[in-house]
């Protein structure tokens, strides 16, 4: 059952990622990115990361993608213009990509250590433990992050404002 769930959502995830690459319209790419993020949230749940799964849905699928789609519709981004690809890239790039991938996988398989099997469904990362850690061990990083978000808000307001006022 767990294996089936993993394979199902991993297939969705990989399919969405490939679809993002082959779609020509920006809005279709954005929708397939939402599929990737939703299935990743379920994979996080399978790994036992409740907090991360919920935050993934709220922040990524909820906030960031809404922002993307809002901008796509605001700017009326239609079909992508195609630029001329160079022949050198096609002749050398694709074979070397496959060759490099095969060599990389082969090297990794040669040096594979003993691997543990991940128990699935043993939820061990509940939100209260993550929150305690966030506010004790990583308190400084958390505060610095809040400053970063504040700067990002101000930067977005300043950059998107019309300058002809």
């Amino acid at each position, binding site marked *: 059952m*767990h*294996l089936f769930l*993993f394979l199902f959502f*991993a297939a969705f*995830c*990989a399919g969405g*990622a*490939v679809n*993002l*690459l082959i779609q020509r319209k*920006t809005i279709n790419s*954005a929708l397939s990115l939402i599929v*990737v*993020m939703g299935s*990743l949230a379920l*994979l996080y749940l*399978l*790994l036992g*990361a409740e*907090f*991360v799964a919920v*935050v*993934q849905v709220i*922040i*990524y699928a909820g*906030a*960031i993608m809404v*922002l*993307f789609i809002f*901008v796509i519709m*605001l*700017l009326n*981004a239609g079909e*992508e*213009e*195609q*630029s001329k690809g160079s022949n050198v890239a096609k002749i050398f790039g694709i074979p070397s990509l496959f060759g490099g991938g095969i060599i990389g996988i082969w090297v990794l398989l040669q040096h594979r250590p003993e*691997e543990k*099997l*991940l*128990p*699935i469904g043993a939820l*061990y*990362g509940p939100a209260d*433990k*993550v929150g305690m*850690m*966030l506010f004790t061990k*990583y308190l400084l*990083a958390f505060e610095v*992050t809040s400053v*970063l*978000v504040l*700067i*990002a*808000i101000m*930067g*977005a307001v300043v*950059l*998107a404002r019309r300058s002809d006022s």
Partner: protein
Amino acid sequence: MIPISWYLLLSAFLFACGVTGFLIKRNIITLFMSIELMLNGVNLSFVAFATNLGALDGHIFVFFVMVVAAAEAAVGLAIIISVYRTRETLNVDRVNLLKL
């Protein structure tokens, strides 16, 4: 029971798709989405290793990555809107000057 290497393979695949999209796409918004895809791939390997090691630190890192991604999307999309106002295009090949 699923070996961790399967999760890592999926994570590497997502990252590779993000890199490919960043290199072959010409629409500036799609480039941003490819960056988000790369960040998601890295997040998946963080969570997989956190579960493997039994430590929660990976989850905290994923949280920080998400916050940085949100900040980056906000500022980046503001820059895109500002570029579009002056250039009237979203094609990165035509945005070849730093000057707005």
